[in-house]
Every structure is written in C-alpha cells, then in structure tokens.
C-alpha cells in the first residue's frame, strides 16, 4: 500500500471552452492536512470540484491510493472514500438534520456509534436533529455539511472555504474537530481557505495557486510565520 492517498498529474479542466485548471500537480500523503490558498478566481474551488468529479477532467490524471479515478463519476469517487464539503455548504434545505446525515450514509456504511460521535463533535446537531436544515444558521449548516460526509467514514475530506460567512467561535470549533479527527483516526484533509487563523490552526503544509497552477508550496516552518502566510494569501 502506497503512502500517497491522492495525486494529480497535469490536471486540466474548465467550463465549456474556458480553461481554469491548467496542469495542476499535487500529492497528498495519508493523514496529512493540506491547505490550498490563493487569490479569488485562481481555480481553488474548481480544483475541489474536479477532485470529487463534479467537473470532468479534460486532460491529466487523478490517482486515489495509486488507482486512476479520472474517468469515474462523482458518486463512484465518493464511494471510494472522498467526502466533499462544498462552498456554501449545500445542505438539503427541506430535509431535517437527521435526514441530511442519513443521506451521507451513501458514502459508506456508518460505523457503529458514528452518530453519537458526530453529536459529540457538533452538539448543536443533536439539539436540532428534527429541524429542517434550511432553517439552520450558516455555521450550523457548515457543521451539518461536515458531519454529513464524516458519517460515511471517508479516507479523504475536501473542504471548500469552511470558514466563509461563519462566526469565529464556530470556525475554531470546526478547525479543532478536524485536527482531532486527523490525530485520532488519521483522516486526510484538503481544504481551500482564506482565513489565516484557520490555515495556521489546521494545515501541515500549504499549496499556493495562481492562474490555474500550483506556483509554490509553504512548508510547516513557513506557516509558523503569520506574515509569510499573509503575503502568500494575496499572491
């Protein structure tokens, strides 16, 4: 078994005729937490969408645990253990919290006690379990969206701007939860983020994107320094 969980080789994709990703190479090892940063519109969300398969790859290759998954549809990739938490959360608004979580079971069979575990991480979800998801606050929806993929015990979680529009206390709580899951069960996380505190709280290392390519990589030492991170956030 290889130590690399996900690898892309010269990944290219875009919308219609407009190219967005122009040859992305990343490699993520098992149990790593990797951030993807860069200005708006450089293709970070597009990268996440093409990793889960909501956008087809035009060229290049995508390997999950050494096996090519480039041609697989989104639901097949998800069942191989990729959990996708999109920008804007995308909870099912007219379903209850509990039903949203149950939908996550399609990712993988729920392990015993997983619901209790999720409610321990996100107590608000237990309190609101029979409430319709559309009536939750942004932060609560974000927690639901994350818990929804974790129910299926994915190997790799993709988070697209988890802090966007959410109050700082919940951002911290989410970061703590992800770090804890990473330490306890070796969960691998790739996340797109602009929030400097969240990046520093979670990331082991960091890819910097510009114009559809990875332009540089920040090591753990570079992440130590707030000013360096800030500088790269606006590259």
């Amino acid at each position, binding site marked *: 078994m290889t130590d690399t969980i996900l690898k892309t080789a010269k990944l290219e994709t875009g919308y219609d005729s407009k190219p967005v990703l122009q040859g992305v190479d990343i490699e993520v090892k098992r149990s790593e937490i990797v951030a993807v940063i860069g200005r708006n519109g450089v293709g970070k969300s597009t990268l996440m969408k093409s990793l*889960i*398969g*909501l956008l087809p790859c035009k060229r290049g290759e995508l390997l999950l645990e050494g096996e090519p998954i480039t041609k697989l*549809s*989104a*639901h097949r990739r*998800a*069942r191989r253990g990729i959990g*996708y938490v*999109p920008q804007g959360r*995308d909870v*099912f*608004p*007219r*379903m209850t919290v509990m*039903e*949203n979580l*149950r*939908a*996550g079971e*399609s*990712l*993988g069979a729920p392990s015993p006690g997983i619901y209790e575990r999720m409610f321990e991480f996100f107590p608000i979800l237990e309190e609101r379990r029979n409430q319709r998801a559309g009536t939750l606050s942004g932060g609560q929806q974000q927690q639901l969206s994350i818990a*929804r*993929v974790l129910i*299926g015990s994915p190997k790799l979680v993709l988070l697209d701007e988890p802090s966007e529009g959410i109050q700082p206390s919940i951002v911290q709580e989410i970061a703590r939860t992800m770090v804890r899951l990473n330490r306890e069960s070796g969960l691998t996380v790739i996340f797109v983020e602009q929030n400097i505190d969240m990046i520093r709280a979670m990331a082991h290392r960091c890819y910097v994107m510009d114009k559809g390519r990875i332009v540089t990589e920040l090591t753990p030492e570079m992440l130590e320094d707030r000013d360096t991170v800030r500088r790269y956030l606006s590259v």
Partner: protein
Amino acid sequence: MAFLSELFAFLYQAGDAFAFLVLAACGLAIVFGMMGVINLAHGEFILCGAYVCATATRLGMPLPLSVLLGALVAGIVGMILERLVIRHLYHRPLDTIVATWGISMIATQGTLIVLGSTLPGTGTPLGSFTLGDYSFSQYRLVLIGTALATLVGLYLLFTRTRFGILARATIQMPHMAQALGINTGLVYSLTFGLGAGLAGLAGGLYAPTMTLVPTMGSAFLVEAFVTVVVGGADIFLGTAPAAAILGVIKAALTSWYGQLAGQIGLLLTAIVVIRVMPRGLSGWLLRERG
C-alpha cells in the same frame, strides 16, 4: 334518514371523484414534482396498466393481483423509456413535452393497430348496496380506500425509507447528492418508474369500470393535469388537498347540474388557481411557511 342518505350520496360522489383524481394524478405529480418532467405519455401508462390488468383477469388471475401486475408492467416500461428517451432530455423541459407526446401517440396508435379498437372488459367486481333511495357500488368504496392507502404509502415511502431520503436529496440538490455517493441516475430512473407504476395502478384499478379503448388514457390525463396544476409540485401539500377540493367541486356541480358542469367547474378552478397561485397550492403553502 332521507337527509343522511342524501349526505352519504354526496360524500360518496365526492370521495369517488377524489379517488379518481388522486389515483390519476399522483404518478404525474411525482414525475413533475420530483423531476420537473411534464409527462404527456402519462395516459398511456394508465392504458398499459388497464390492458395488462384486464388481460390477466380474463386469463384467470384474481383482480388484486392483476392490478398489481398492471402497475408493475407500467413501471418497468416507464423505467425503460426513462433510460432510452427521458434521461437525455433533463434540463430541456420543452423537448421532454414533445418527446413524451410522441411516445403517447405511438403507444395509442400502436395499441389500435396491434390490439384493435377495443379490448373486452371484465365487468365491475363486487356488488352494490342501497341506502335510502340510492344504490352504491362497493367497488367504488374500494377505490376510495385504495386512493387513501396510496397517499399514506407514498408518504411513508418518501419520509421513512432509504429510497425516500435519497430521492428527496437528489431532487433538492442533484450535484450534492452525487458528491455524497448517491447514484442519481438510478434514483431518477426509479422515480420515473414509480410515477409510471402509479399510472399503471390507476389503469388497473379502473379497468373493470371502463370501456377499454386505446385512447382511454386521455380520459385520465386532463383531470390529472388539472389536479397537478392546482396542487403544484408537492404531492402531499399539493396533489392530495387539490384532489379533495376538486373532488367536492366536481361532485357538487355534477350532482346539481350534470357531468358537463362538473368538467367545466374543474377547468375554471384550475384557471383561477393558476391566476392567484401560479405555483399551485403547495407552492403557496411552502412560501407561507417560509
């Protein structure tokens, strides 16, 4: 006593109209509400159910089983058509209307050519009973019961089962459902099959009460569409209450002014409702609820 039998006669008529509207419309409502597909071939799935049921009954199968067989065959035909035709036309509503209309014509004319202008009926089962001055068919009571049971069954299917959760997730947010590992193509196929199967159920249930001709689907189609238009996209907040309201209107107008008045009343109600609530009862209720 006279008053009571009058009252019962009216409730019976309203219930009969309600059952017809629910059974005729629920398949159409599911396909429209959950998939956004306006299925003009709905009447031909009803035809399919009716013909299969009548044929099976004449070959000696008990009626309840024949009805279920009709529903099953219509459902399977629906799933095949979804895969061959409808699937390629999602997000192209106008093209879907044309395509399903074409399927409808092919099915009607094909039935006419292959099976002739009529199929021998089986006669209405069960007997009748009298109350006061009126005589009532027991089979109609069975139909009313079946309509209610179908609504309850669908409610449980969509709220209590795994399929229900996956179907609602797919309908509310297809891309997210896919990203969670839900095979949305399969969900669409099953949902369309369910809609077609319910149409087949209606056909099978009404087969013993009607003349079996290749165009019999159109007798259901108009009322089914009126019910769906008045009800809107949600079957429980829309179709069911719409069928109840329309059933009462139809029964009242029919018993006081005749069948034609009943039909006109349905269409007028539909026009008024579209004017006041463009998204039907359920659209209005959901907006009120926020």
